[in-house]
């Protein structure tokens, strides 16, 4: 019959109208600032810097190699290298960024900085509430705003973070093993050397008696 479709449609909307008051399940929306949906795992918008441990300054993974700065297509990254060094996660002394700014008004979220970073130091964030009343200053994120803990990374991108953590742990293990091996070798070497040194020392002592200095003997001290 004619007009049947209209009545059917009216019935459907009426059901929705009443139903939305009766059952909460029908409501497809969330009330945003109070309730939020978890972003899906592949969400990404702007980069952030990862740090390990509790101290953002000490734990920053970035070694200020400036690859990302060079690769960034819109040139939104600005890095100033430090003059001194500090130990990284494996304990090796590295440079760190004295300044690390990203202008997110320029950033195009291409993720190239993440791809090129050899130190897993820069990753994509899911933070989207970036609105500000300062068009220029408010959209330049400095090192302190960019630094976010590894736990944050693990929360927003669990799979990727697990991979990264595993790789870093492996590397660290490798480095430690290497260091250990090196240390063992060094220890063996020192042992051998110390044995040698002993004989040398003895001979040196003998020599010292002649009045000459034992300065080279000090250099072999472990």
């Amino acid at each position, binding site marked *: 019959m*004619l007009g049947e479709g209209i009545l059917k449609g009216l019935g459907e*909307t*009426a059901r929705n*109208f009443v139903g*939305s008051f009766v059952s909460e399940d029908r409501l*497809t*929306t969330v009330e945003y600032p109070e309730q939020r949906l978890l972003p899906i795992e592949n969400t990404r918008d702007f980069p952030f810097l990862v740090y390990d441990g509790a101290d953002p300054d000490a734990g920053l993974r970035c070694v200020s190699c400036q690859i990302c700065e060079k690769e960034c297509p819109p040139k939104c990254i600005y890095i100033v290298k430090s003059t001194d060094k500090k130990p990284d996660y494996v304990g090796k002394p590295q440079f760190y960024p004295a300044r690390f700014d990203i202008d997110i008004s320029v950033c195009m979220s291409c993720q190239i900085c993440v791809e090129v970073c050899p130190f897993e130091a820069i990753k994509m964030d899911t933070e989207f509430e970036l609105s500000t009343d300062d068009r220029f200053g408010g959209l330049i994120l400095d090192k302190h705003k960019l630094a976010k803990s590894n736990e944050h990374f693990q929360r927003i991108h669990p799979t990727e973070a697990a991979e990264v953590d595993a790789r870093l742990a492996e590397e660290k293990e490798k480095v430690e093993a290497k260091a250990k091996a090196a240390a063992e070798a060094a220890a063996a070497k020192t042992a051998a050397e110390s044995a040698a040194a002993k004989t040398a020392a003895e001979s040196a002592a003998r020599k010292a008696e002649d009045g000459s200095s034992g300065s080279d003997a000090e250099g072999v001290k472990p």
Partner: protein
Amino acid sequence: MNSATLDQFFVLLQHHLSALFPTVLQPWVSMILGVVGIVAVFPAIFALTTVLERKGLGRMQNRLGPNRVGPFGILQPIADAIKSLTKEDIVPRSADDVVHFLAPVVLVVAIFLGYAVLPVGRNMVLLNIDAGILLFFAVGASTELSIFMAGWSSRNKYSLLGAMRAVAQMISYEVPLLLAAVVAVMMAGSLAPTAIVQAQGGFTGIFPHWYVFTPWGFAGFALFVVAALAETNRSPFDLPEGESELVAGYFTEYSGFKFALFFLGEYLGMMSIAGYGITLFLGGWGAPFSFLTFIPSWAWFFAKLFLAIFFFIWLRGTLPRLRQDQLMNFAWKFMLPLSLLNLCVAAAWRFLGECLGSGTVAEVMRWLVCAAVLVLAYILLARTLLRRQNIRPRSYRYAD
């Protein structure tokens, strides 16, 4: 306070307030009070309607709707008003300044004039003139010109297209609207809205003598509702401002307060046409059952008005927009013949009433004959048109 006093509360208030002034000024003061009443009440209902519409549409789409400003978002219109008042008023550089400025003003003034003869309660009508319905249609016709002014003066293709669509649509649907309304006028024997309401005032048993409860009245009411939707550019007839096609139609280039005026005009137009629909077919301020007459007449009117507004919102939440050719075909090939036939049926109703006498059997006979004619015409006409339209399941051959 007994129910009669309550019923006439506002009339008495107006009377007592104007009695405070010297005799010479009294008619003027009384008139101004009436105008103030209309200018205060209907925009307030408009404000309420905007938020209720958004909430209602939200609920129909399983959303919550605005709920941030004030309790349950009820203060949303105030926020909207502040926003539109403080926004920059942009006039395009090539626009026709004077016409661009006048268009919203003319629209709102014309629509407010329509309220002058709308009876909102017993003895509650600003101008009780003889040709009230004619005045309503006259000012309704002049809104078309203001819409054209708005669209043309903006020097924008979307505005002009929207305005031309609006004017074509309003002219086309004004014919069935008038013809549908004429039925009630014919039966009441008067063009005065108050007289039409009086004519529907009686009760049979507990049921009122509203025109909508007769075959021709029901058909007239249905035609009136459809034509009213088109006249006020409401969905599903919102082609003139179809935002997916024309940005915002004829008020694309309006911002700030002028935009708010257009918005106000649109909703006031909707409410006034709903008010006249109520007056013509739904017994105006009359109670729906004889045992409910103790409730004040104005309360009934506004209750019906809110119901009508809810129905408009409900339709908007349900129906998709028509296409231009469908719109025109519907007006000229379907609405017009049916409303003309309805006119004949109404005449036959009156004639049969005189011929058959006043027994119950005669009443039922008359009712059945008139209803059968209308239903038959409806089915035949619609079938024919649908067959000619050649409606098939939609093919997506261009999309694939």
